[in-house]
């Protein structure tokens, strides 16, 4: 709300309040700071990685208000009032999620640079429904780029997840 945002004329900074991985906080941020740089440099959540910084590679994908988005294509000030999820919010008390476990079991990562972006894209996708076919798996991976491991391991990881869904009933 423009009337509630406190504009500092010298630093051109604004106050924003948002929820990150379940914790609400207020931050005084420069207007032109991207959400990705905000998360990394101001909040210290460096699990969100930056690749191309113009929306092509998907490394910086996070979840904002339940939707997977590119954090390099948003300004931090646009996230005022939003709820953000990053890779740091996935594992609880050191226990990996079933999706993360599947990535590990199926060699779905090598250098790991792109992994957090993939995970967040997939978490958002899996909330819409299970990924049951290879075509669905590949479609769900298509918005992110991996430059070392490739996608075969990720496809296997995703398919193993839908196969095991019925057994343990656990949601990724």
């Amino acid at each position, binding site marked *: 709300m423009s009337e509630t945002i406190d504009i500092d004329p010298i630093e051109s900074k604004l106050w924003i309040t948002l929820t990150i991985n379940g914790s609400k906080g207020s931050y005084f941020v*420069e*207007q032109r700071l991207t959400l990705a740089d905000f998360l990394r440099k101001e909040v210290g959540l460096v699990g969100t990685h930056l690749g191309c910084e*113009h929306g092509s590679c*998907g490394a910086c994908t996070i979840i904002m208000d339940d939707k997977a988005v590119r954090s390099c294509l*948003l300004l931090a000030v646009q996230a005022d009032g939003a709820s953000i999820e990053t890779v740091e919010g996935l594992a609880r008390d050191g226990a990996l999620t079933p999706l993360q476990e599947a990535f590990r079991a199926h060699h779905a990562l090598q250098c790991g640079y792109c992994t957090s972006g993939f995970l967040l894209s997939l978490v958002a996708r899996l909330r819409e429904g299970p990924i049951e076919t290879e075509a669905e798996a590949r479609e769900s991976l298509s*918005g992110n780029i991996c430059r070392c491991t490739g996608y075969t391991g990720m496809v296997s990881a995703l398919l193993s997840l839908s196969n095991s869904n019925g057994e343990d009933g656990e949601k990724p």
Partner: protein
Amino acid sequence: MKPSRFTYHAPTDLDEVLDLLAKYGDEAKVLAGGQSLIPMLNFRLLAPAHLIDINRVSELRNYLLDDSGLNVGALVRHRELETSPEVELAYPILHEGLTNIAHVQIRNRGTVCGSLAHADSAAELPSIMVALDASMNVRSQSSQRSVRAEEFFRFHLTSDLDSSELLVSVDIPALGTGTVGVFDEITRRKGDFALVGAAVLGTWDSGGKIQDCRIVCSGVAPTPLRLREAEQFVSGTDLSDDVLVGVQQLVMESLEPTEDIHTSAEYRKKVTGVIVRRGLARLTDQRRAIHV
């Protein structure tokens, strides 16, 4: 810091947006989905002194589908329209176009009107809007006008909007009985900008002939390009195999597409002929589906 300095404005109603545009228009950019604008700011291809974020303007947030057509407000995201079963049923051509735009992460933020205002000649929606004869509803502080899609796109990345104006919504007329349309494109990888795209629309009459055919291509010219000769060639025919072969030939011989780093003019010419033929062939499939 990626973008250069600007003053960020976050108005909450349309009048406030129009006031800001009247005041700062020449040095301002409007931020809706930001999926084209923010990359340009990150690269500093643009360095506006003012950024007017319209995302908090709730009156721009909705779309309305009724008997007269579809009205899409400036903040309606691609993904929102794409996942509407009603919109898919009413405008299969639009649904096909939307699913071809980049990736879901981009479609979650990018807006229909933003893509139109950006006027990228390789984008899907401008061509589709020309095929559907959509109208752009444009407002400034002191004026209001409606611009037909065909007149709206002026050049690559240049629309008819002046710096004090906002594209508040787009109106797509309802499709009549027997009207069918498809969209297809050729890309190097899924989600890339199209090398060539084609929006093809026509109306089957009771005698089994296609009428009022519109063939609009993206990626071949600085604006969406209507292939009028090809439209005339196929209108009034039954789109038999001979007609399809003939129109493909006509497109390949008459088109003078642009050449760029992505591909040669020669290749564009060939694939345009192919996707126009394929699109027209699918109009026949769709005729069977609607039992005209």
